[in-house]
């Protein structure tokens, strides 16, 4: 075990219980215990105080709590190579009942793991430069980025080296392994906000500024975003950050969170609470005290929001090379499909696979003369489509009751089936993003969906029935969270209800008007009238 750090807050009598646990033994120390003890002696040997620390190894108990675990693997910036993909697939096959999920933070998630398998999995990941460490826990999580970094015609610089630097700096860094709460970073130079800046604790977005007569491409800095039960949009600091200052600024912001973030109540510990209290101005002042003077904001290069979607074949900034954005319905695949994806990446591209925060994937660097054959591949034709139908293509879902202890309803398979139904029932050529979640914690990012569906259980004469509350109008284009309607729809009626609601929008919208903008234009009251009218005739 590494030498224990003497944190400045250690003697604070108002620390919450989890904080005391973290002071007793750093979360990262559990990795060694898992490898040397628990993986050899089994589930029963796990000390209850260590179970929470498993998160620092990237591992949680899954539902029901019968000895099986979920694991997240960090995919920094959403980029992995085919060799890594094959190792991930083999882990799923050997230990994870053949299941691979792509998450809304570009990570890869396994289920059904036993503690006995963890040491071997850690080794297999490390052998190909991957890690599950700190993918969960009160520490810097997977660093999100632009999965097109380096090839993106819509980026102003290649962020891959910066993601790598951030990952190298923060991963297993004991200076930052005891934060007040989870901590999420993103960096993207894509002008369409590919990495969802406003819902991260710390985000870097593209900007430029003329400094001493020289035009510098760099970043603006956002702090304090997050969803969950109390969603909050990040605040932009009055700062222009040169690329070479990114790690320094990230270290500074994370240090502020570590040293000034709240540790009295876990429900009031995320960076957003500190940012809300301090405001962006004071936050900047404190940041400058740590990292030195920073240039004030320059010109913002963000132009709208692509939602994190890249479907189809598109030319890269390298002439003659193309990337292919593929749909993975609700992010779930089996091991053989991941192996096949790796083969396609090798055979047609440069072996790189991108994971998207929309739970999808992409393949990069396909020469023009290989595109036709690529498009004819069975995996592309039948499963990971280049042009998915509208609803399947824009459906996002959390894990739900299948594996999650906090979920109230099943979501993953339900969202997949619902999207299929809507595609069969409503013809719509405009993307309409539906996000489904099984509890208020919002792993499926309900608040940013055009339509957000949040699960509830309703008592009926024939027993408990799953139902969903309806929220409308979420977007990061002109950032705003969706708002709740007065409607709790049982699952048997959910498909027809949504089909009618969307049909009304389709008839009423202006040309090309996305659903969130339509909601904004006609107003929530009008949408509620539509809902009431549908429910009256149901």
């Amino acid at each position, binding site marked *: 075990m590494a030498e224990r750090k003497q944190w400045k807050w250690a003697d604070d009598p108002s620390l*919450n*219980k*989890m904080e005391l646990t973290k002071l007793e033994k750093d979360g990262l120390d559990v990795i060694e215990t898992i490898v040397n003890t628990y993986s050899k002696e089994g589930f029963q040997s796990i000390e209850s105080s260590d179970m929470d620390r498993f998160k620092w190894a990237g591992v949680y108990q899954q539902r*029901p*709590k*019968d000895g099986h675990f979920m694991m997240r693997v960090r995919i920094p910036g959403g980029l992995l190579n085919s060799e890594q993909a094959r190792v991930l697939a083999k882990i799923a096959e050997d230990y994870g009942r053949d299941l691979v999920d792509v998450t809304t933070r570009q990570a890869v998630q396994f289920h059904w793991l036993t503690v006995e398998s963890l040491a071997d999995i850690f080794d297999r990941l490390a052998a190909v430069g991957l890690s599950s460490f700190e993918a969960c826990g009160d520490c810097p999580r997977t660093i999100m980025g632009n999965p097109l970094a380096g090839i993106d015609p819509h980026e102003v610089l290649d962020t891959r080296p910066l993601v790598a630097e951030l990952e190298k700096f923060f991963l297993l860094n004991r200076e930052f392994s005891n934060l007040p709460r989870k901590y999420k970073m993103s960096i993207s130079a894509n002008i369409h906000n590919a990495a969802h800046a406003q819902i991260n604790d710390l985000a870097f977005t593209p900007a430029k500024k003329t400094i001493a007569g020289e035009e510098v491409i760099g970043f603006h800095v956002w702090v304090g975003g997050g969803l969950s039960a109390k969603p909050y949009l990040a605040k932009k600091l009055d700062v222009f950050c040169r690329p070479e200052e990114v790690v320094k600024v990230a270290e500074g912001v994370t240090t502020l969170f570590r040293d000034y973030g709240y540790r009295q*109540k*876990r429900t009031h510990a995320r960076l957003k609470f500190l940012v809300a209290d301090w405001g962006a101005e004071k936050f900047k002042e404190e940041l400058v005290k740590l990292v030195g003077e920073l240039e004030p904001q320059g010109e913002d290069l963000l132009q709208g929001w692509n939602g994190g979607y890249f479907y189809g074949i598109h030319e890269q900034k390298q002439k003659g090379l193309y990337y292919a954005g593929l749909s993975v319905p609700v992010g779930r695949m089996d091991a053989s499909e991941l192996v096949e994806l790796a083969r396609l990446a090798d055979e047609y591209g440069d072996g790189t696979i991108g994971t998207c925060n929309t739970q999808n994937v992409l393949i990069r660097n396909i020469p023009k003369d290989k595109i036709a054959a690529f498009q004819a591949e069975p995996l592309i034709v039948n499963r990971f489509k280049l042009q998915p139908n509208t609803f399947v293509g824009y459906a996002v879902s959390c894990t739900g*009751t299948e594996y999650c*202890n*906090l979920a*109230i309803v099943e979501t993953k398979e339900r969202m997949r089936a619902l999207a299929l139904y809507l595609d069969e029932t409503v013809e719509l050529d405009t993307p309409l993003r539906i996000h489904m979640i099984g*509890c*208020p914690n919002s792993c499926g990012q309900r608040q940013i969906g055009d339509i957000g569906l949040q699960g*509830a*259980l*309703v*008592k009926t004469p024939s027993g*408990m029935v*799953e*139902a969903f*509350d309806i929220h409308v109008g979420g977007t990061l284009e002109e950032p705003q969270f969706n708002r709740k309607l007065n409607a*709790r729809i049982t699952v048997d009626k959910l498909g027809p209800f949504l089909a009618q609601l969307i049909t009304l929008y389709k008839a009423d919208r202006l040309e090309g008007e996305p659903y969130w903008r339509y909601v904004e234009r006609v107003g929530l009251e009008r949408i509620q009238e539509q809902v009431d009218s549908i429910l009256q005739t149901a």
Partner: protein
Amino acid sequence: MSEEQTETYLYKLEAVLEEGRLLTVVVLANSDERAFSAAENNILRHTVAPPHIKELSLVEKKPIGRQGVGYVIETSHF
């Protein structure tokens, strides 16, 4: 859905009564079914005449592993 849980949870339920009144009920239970049943019992105890519950829904559950777990219930001024 009917699976017995190994943990006890603090449940939040919402009840719509026939006359339009809305109630939020918080109960401790170790399964979703028991949460519904406990909520109904608590509503019965809360009201003088047996209420006609139009809709009863379970909307959130939190494990009670940590002290202080709870809910904030938004209410209007009387």
